[in-house]
């Protein structure tokens, strides 16, 4: 029972990370590194939280979160692709903007108004039959809708990236944009598209936290998840299945850390809380030089 609960929590904790990392994989495959994922997640989180709070519609909250993150993603794309600004610096700015904007909205709308601020959350939907499978059933098939969505999104995005014309163009534009240009494909539009897709998924991953994980917003509630998703991408060798598995690994670290806190061991909980971050460091060290990164990653394209 303990184990089932632990694994079930693993899947729940992994879901937002996987969303964000899938998006970032697309973006990096197209040659753009967005280290501003944390900021985009915060934008998504505050937008979803506010929207759900006032409208009561979870669906609307999720859509609003994605659109808001895409708006900021568009700003990033404009700077990183069109203006050819340094992607790392621009991404860092995005993180600060996300932190600032989300904190500002939260204080103005909620903290100072004394509104009781719990929101509705996504319910677990046990799938008929499937959820009754012993062991795997409760772990995989008694989850909320976004978890199921990640199960669907993973194979679809993997398929698009590897088996379609669009995916081929994305993979090529991150390696050799000039070659892509010389066969008449739109380098900028491909990059914009991938950045916006990544932003939408980062918004979704951020929205997950207040409306599926906790039922409220706290300032900086993403707590580095955007950065963890960022490290998952090279760890996974820029592949979608790899990102999925990496997400589960980090999900397990989060779930374990929560369990251990509840278990009241003689270890300070602050120490346990560092578990996911220690894992991140370990992963970075282990994944060093394992696969080659896209050749044109972080290199703005200059036509002509």
């Amino acid at each position, binding site marked *: 029972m303990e184990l089932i609960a632990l694994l079930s929590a693993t899947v729940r904790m992994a879901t937002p990370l996987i969303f964000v990392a899938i998006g970032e994989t697309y973006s990096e495959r197209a040659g753009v590194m967005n280290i501003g994922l944390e900021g985009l997640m915060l934008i998504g989180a505050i937008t979803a939280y506010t929207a759900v709070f006032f409208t009561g519609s979870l669906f609307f909250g999720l859509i609003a979160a994605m659109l808001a993150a895409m708006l900021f993603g568009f700003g990033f794309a404009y700077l990183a692709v069109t203006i050819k600004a340094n992607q790392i610096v621009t991404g860092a700015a995005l993180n600060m903007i996300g932190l600032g904007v989300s904190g500002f909205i939260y204080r103005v709308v909620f903290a100072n108004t004394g509104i009781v601020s719990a929101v509705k959350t996504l319910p677990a939907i046990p799938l008929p039959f499937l959820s009754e499978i012993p062991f795997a059933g409760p772990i995989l098939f008694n989850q909320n809708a976004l978890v199921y969505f990640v199960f669907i999104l993973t194979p679809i995005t993997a398929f698009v990236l590897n088996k*379609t014309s669009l995916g*081929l163009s994305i*993979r*090529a534009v991150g*390696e*050799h944009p000039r*070659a892509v240009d*010389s066969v008449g*494909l739109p380098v900028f539009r491909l990059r914009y598209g991938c950045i916006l897709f990544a932003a939408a998924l980062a918004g979704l991953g951020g929205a997950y936290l207040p409306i599926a994980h906790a039922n409220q917003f706290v300032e900086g509630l993403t707590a580095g998840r955007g950065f963890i998703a960022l490290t998952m991408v090279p760890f996974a060798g820029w592949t979608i299945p790899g990102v999925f598995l990496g997400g589960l690994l980090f999900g397990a670290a989060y779930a374990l850390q929560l369990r251990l806190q509840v278990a009241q061991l003689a270890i300070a909980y602050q120490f346990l809380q560092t578990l996911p971050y220690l894992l991140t460091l370990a992963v970075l060290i282990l994944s060093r030089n394992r696969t080659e990164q896209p050749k044109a990653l972080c290199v703005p394209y200059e036509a*002509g």
Partner: protein
Amino acid sequence: MTPSPIPRLEVKNITKRFPGVLANDNISLSILPGEIHALLGENGAGKTTLMNIVYGLVHRDSGEILINGMPVNIRSPREAIQHRVGMVHQHFMLVPTLTVAENVILGMRPFTHHLLDMREIEQDILKIAEKYGLQIKPSELISRLSVGEQQRVEIVKALYRGVDLLILDEPTAVLTPQETTELFKTIRSLTKQGLSIIFITHKLNEVMEVADRISVLRDGKLIATKSVQETDKDELAFLMVDRCISFTVEKPEMKRGEPVLVVKDLTVSDKFRTQVDHISFHVCSGEILGIAGVDGNGQNELALSLSGLLRPSSGKILLNGKDVTHESVRKLNRVGLGHIPADRQNLGLVMDFTVAENLILQRYYCSPFTTTLGFFDLAQIQENAQRLVREYDIRTRTTQTKLNHLSGGNQQKVILAREIDQKPKLLIAVQPTRGLDCGATEYIHQILVEQRNAGAAILLVSTELDEILALSDRICVMYEGKIMGELLNTGEDILRIGRLMAGVTDS
């Protein structure tokens, strides 16, 4: 004369100015259906620029382009492809991490077209390749192909798109003699099917062998268009450089000295294969040792390991009697190693730096370029640059021009000037004249021979047999990482060398 057919391509009064250079000056040309039209010219004559304009990569300042008699306005490669124009670039446009088939299909299907059936696409590609007698393996990764193979992929890529006019920008610069012969066969079979070919080159032999008509560019101007029957090599050379040139290098008797470079049992390998396989040889001062071989038989790895850029897995390298197997590049450089790398843009130059800066890449921290206080002495740097630009005839607008604004040949001269000016004891020259016109080639050959006469040891790695034969005192032939044979160069062993290059040992 019968009334001539409508030209496949006609350019009229094309002018293109880059900051400081008039790259194309009022050029008018026409290419007939089924014709092989050679575009001849020295480095920087404007050949690539003109073709980039036709292919939509560069925009003309003025002038007109007509395709099959219709005026067109080509603003991007996409539009060029729509007008059935294809181009194989001087620097290939292939994505190394993708397969041959993926590179060919790239950009061919709309994004809305789901599921690429690679099996079927590979079949289609094979069909086209076979039709024109091009050997390629569609499922192979580009990064595993030799340059010659990559070029075939580029040609198939163009053919797959359906072209009536195929532009080949210096296609033979990177090919072995055998591959060049193959390419010419392909080109001829293409024209039999009605394609027109524009063929850019510096090599007069090739022009005479394959072209129907020849246009010569010099300093951005069209000097003349001739048919092969009415011209010869001497005239073309004259038109191209506006001065007479000789085709042989004067080489006095060798005065061989002590061994400078001794290589003992050197092996270089990576995860996948052994590129250099237990090689031993030496080079003495005052001699040129030529390493011949088909591209991709370990010569590059050999040169890289000798110059400290690639770690050998075993064996010893002695320079002037000292073991330098694991020395840093800077140390090697200081004890007298000069290196002209094959991959000039990545290993030899910083493309975003100016000519002056590139000319002091190794010596920037020494006097006179850096003063005792640790600051650059800009006047010295400038003076150094001006002297070298003058001595080595580097065609650049100023010494402050960025390297990526220089033509390919002039980029090469920058490396040469820098390396040779340090009077190296050992000079490793890998494909030193790749992509250079005959004037520049002759000039570089002269410099190499001068260095040899002055007592330098020279290791010349080249896939151009003519170059090896013209310069070397001794020749080693490499095949699959091994030295197949070594011989003194009498200039008469072409057949034997050819056999060794193909891996057939003397029996």
